[in-house]
C-alpha cells in the first residue's frame, strides 16, 4: 500500500517530492511516481494545494458498537496523596470535550489510602464523577497493577475517550492499557479537539517537532491520548458538583510479577526538570564545570531548575539527569533560558515547546536565536552577573 495520486488533479509541481521524508516521490517526465519506499506517513497529503494525493484509510476492523461508549475520562496521576498538576489540566481540557459531546466527565484515581479531599479537588476542576480504586497494592506504581485496574474500569463503564498525562508514569503504563483494550493511542499530544461525529482530534509534534500531525482513532474505543504536561490550562470551576464512587475490583487486578524494591525521590530539586516552571540551562559556552555556578545562582534566585545541553553533560560538568534534548528530557516550562547553548536541533526539540525562551549567546548566528522569544547577544560572563544583580535589586526594593 502507498499514497495514491489523482493524475487529473496533479500538476507535477514537485512540492510533494521535496516534502517526502522517505524520498519516495519522484518526478517523471510528466507525472509523479510514488515508490515502494512510501511509509504512508501522510506528510505529502497536506503539501499538495491541488488535493491530488490521498492515503488509504486505516483498517475498518470489526467496528464495535461505538455509540455504546459514552463519557470522557481523565486518569489523575497521584503520588503519596498528591495529584499531579497535569490531572487538573486534563480535567479542564476534558470538560470542554465532554460539554461538546453532552456527556459526563470522569476522573480516575488509583492509590493507597486515598482521601476524599483530593477527589473533591478533582471535582472542583470539572469532574462529574471520580472513580477511586484504593488498595495497599497500589501504594507504589507498577505498570501491571495500574493498567489492569484501568482496563477493568473501562470494560465496566465504557468511556469513549481516555486521557492521561504524558509523564514518565503515563507514558509507561498507558500503552499497556491501550494494547490490553485493543485500541489506538496517541502519545504526547499538545492539542485536543473533537469533531462533529465525536472523533477526538489529537495533535502532536512529529519528526523532532519539525511538523505537527493530527491523528484520529476512527474505529476503536476508547480513543486514548497522553497529553504533555503544562500545555492545557487548569481552570477551577467553583461550585461544580460531582460525586465520588469507590470501586472494588477483583483480586487479579492487583497481581504483579514485578516487585518494587526501592523508590528513591530525587533530592536535587534543581534536577526536577519536567515539573519546573523555570529552567536555566547551561552549555559549552560556560567553558568549564565550575562556571555552572552562574546558572545555579540564577536558578536558585528564581526557584527554577538547572538544565544542560548534551555538550555540557559530555564534558561532565553536570549530571546527565539535567540534560535537556533528544537524548535527555523534553521540557516545556513557562521560561526556558539557554545560556551559552548554540542550539543544535537535538537540543531544540527538547525545549521548543517552552512558553518563553531566552537565549544568551555571544554568536549572533547561533541557531538558538531562531527559537528564542528574547535574544541577548552578549558575553554570558558579563551578562549573567548583571542580570542576577538586576533581580536582586528588585528583591532589595521589595524588602
Amino acid at each position, binding site marked *: *500500500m502507498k499514497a495514491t495520486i489523482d493524475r487529473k488533479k496533479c500538476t507535477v509541481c514537485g512540492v510533494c517530492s*521535496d*516534502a*517526502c*521524508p522517505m524520498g519516495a516521490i519522484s518526478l517523471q517526465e510528466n507525472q509523479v511516481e510514488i515508490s515502494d519506499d512510501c*511509509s*504512508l506517513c*501522510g506528510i505529502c497529503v497536506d503539501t499538495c494545494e491541488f488535493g491530488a494525493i490521498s*492515503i488509504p484509510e*486505516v*483498517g475498518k476492523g470489526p467496528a464495535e458498537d461505538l455509540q455504546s461508549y459514552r463519557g470522557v475520562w481523565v486518569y489523575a496521576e497521584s503520588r503519596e496523596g498528591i495529584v499531579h498538576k497535569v490531572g487538573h489540566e486534563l480535567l479542564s481540557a476534558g470538560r470542554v470535550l465532554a460539554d461538546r459531546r453532552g456527556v459526563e466527565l470522569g476522573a480516575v484515581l488509583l492509590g493507597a489510602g486515598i482521601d476524599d479531599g483530593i477527589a473533591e479537588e478533582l471535582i472542583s476542576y470539572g469532574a462529574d464523577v471520580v472513580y477511586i480504586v484504593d488498595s495497599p497494592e497500589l501504594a507504589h*506504581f507498577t*505498570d501491571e497493577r495500574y493498567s489492569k485496574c484501568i482496563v477493568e474500569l473501562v470494560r465496566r463503564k465504557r468511556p469513549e475517550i481516555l486521557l492521561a498525562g504524558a509523564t*514518565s508514569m503515563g*507514558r*509507561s503504563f498507558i*500503552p*499497556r492499557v*491501550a*494494547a490490553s483494550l485493543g485500541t489506538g*493511542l*496517541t*502519545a*504526547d499530544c499538545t492539542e485536543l479537539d473533537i469533531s462533529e461525529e465525536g472523533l477526538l482530534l489529537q495533535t502532536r509534534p*512529529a*519528526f*523532532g517537532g*519539525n511538523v*505537527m*500531525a*493530527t491523528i484520529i*482513532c476512527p474505529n476503536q474505543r476508547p480513543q486514548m491520548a497522553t497529553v504533555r504536561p503544562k500545555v492545557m490550562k487548569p481552570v477551577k470551576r467553583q461550585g461544580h458538583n460531582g460525586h465520588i464512587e469507590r470501586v472494588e475490583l477483583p483480586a487479579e487486578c492487583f497481581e504483579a*510479577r514485578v516487585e*518494587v*524494591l526501592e*523508590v*528513591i525521590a530525587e533530592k536535587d530539586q534543581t534536577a*526536577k526538570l519536567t515539573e519546573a*516552571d*523555570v529552567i536555566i540551562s547551561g552549555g559549552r559556552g560556560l567553558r568549564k564545570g565550575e562556571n555552572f555556578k552562574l546558572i545555579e545562582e540564577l536558578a536558585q534566585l*528564581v*526557584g527554577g531548575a538547572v538544565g544542560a545541553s548534551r555538550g555540557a553533560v559530555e564534558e561532565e560538568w553536570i549530571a546527565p*539527569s539535567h*540534560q535537556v534534548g*533528544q*537524548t535527555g528530557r*523534553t521540557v516545556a516550562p513557562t521560561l526556558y533560558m539557554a545560556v551559552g547553548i548554540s542550539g543544535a*536541533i537535538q537540543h531544540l526539540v527538547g525545549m521548543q515547546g517552552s*512558553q*518563553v525562551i*531566552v537565549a544568551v549567546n555571544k554568536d549572533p548566528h547561533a541557531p538558538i536565536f531562531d527559537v528564542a*522569544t*528574547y*535574544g541577548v*547577544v*552578549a558575553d554570558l560572563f558579563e*551578562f549573567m552577573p*548583571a*542580570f542576577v544583580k*538586576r533581580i536582586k535589586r528588585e528583591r532589595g526594593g521589595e524588602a
Partner: protein
Amino acid sequence: MHLVVCIKQVPDTKNVRIDPDTHTLVRQGVESIINPFDLFAVEAALKIKDEKGARVTVITMGPPQASESLRDTLGLGADDAVLLSDRAFAGSDTWATSTTLAAAIRKMGDVDIVLCGKQAVDGDTAQVGPEMAALLDIPYATFVKKLELPQSGFLKAVRQTDEGTEIWKIPLPALLTVIKEIGEPRMPSLRHKMRAKKAEIPVWGAVDLGLDPEFTGLCGSFTQVVRVFSPPRRSNRIQIKGTVEDQAEQLFQYLKNAKVPGL
C-alpha cells in the same frame, strides 16, 4: 540466555528542517541512522553478553534497506539479525508495529530479555515497547538506566522517573526500554565488521510471522494521520540590544510583563 534487541531506522533529524517559505519538510541530505536510543539498547545487550554470556539477536521492521542498520549492529557484536519486511507492513501505527515485532519474538520462542530504546526520535511515542510487552504478556520496565542480573531467572532494573529513581525486581522473560545512562554505545570492531559483511540477514514477511496481512500495516492500524502541518512560528522574536546593564534591565522588564514565576 537469548536477548532480542528491537531497533528502528530513522531519518537523521538533525538534518531535517522546514523550508521557511514553503513550510514543507526539507529532506535534502537526510540520511538514515539507527535510532540513538536503540543503540543504547544494543549496548545493554552486548554488556550482558560480555559479562554473562548470551546470544544477541537484533530485529527491525522496515523497508529492505533497513538491513544495513542491522548489519551495523552485527559489526558491534550482535550474533544474529532478522529483518521484518513486507509491503503489508507499510503505514503501521504503534499497535500494528507492536503486533508485528511481538509475532517475531513469539516465533523465536526462547527469548529471555527484549530490549528497546525508550523511544524513537522520529515518532517520539515511547509506546511500542510497552505495547509489545502487553501483547507478549510479559512484565516490563521503562526508562531503565541500570541493569543487573543478580540471580538466574530475575533481573534488577533501576528506572529513571520524573520524581527520582526506582529499583525493580523482574522475573524473566521481561522487556526493558533503556535510556542513555545505560551506557554509551561501543565502536564496531574489525573482527565483527568482517563477519557482519558476510552475514546472511533473513527477511520475515507477514506470512512467515503467521500474520494476516489484513491485520498488519495501515490495514491493521487503529490510528490514522489526518492532517500534517508546520508548527506555528514564534511571532514575537525580540533582539535585546545595548550594554549588558541595558540588556539585563530590558530582559527583566520583558519577563516581568510576561508574568514569569519567580521574577
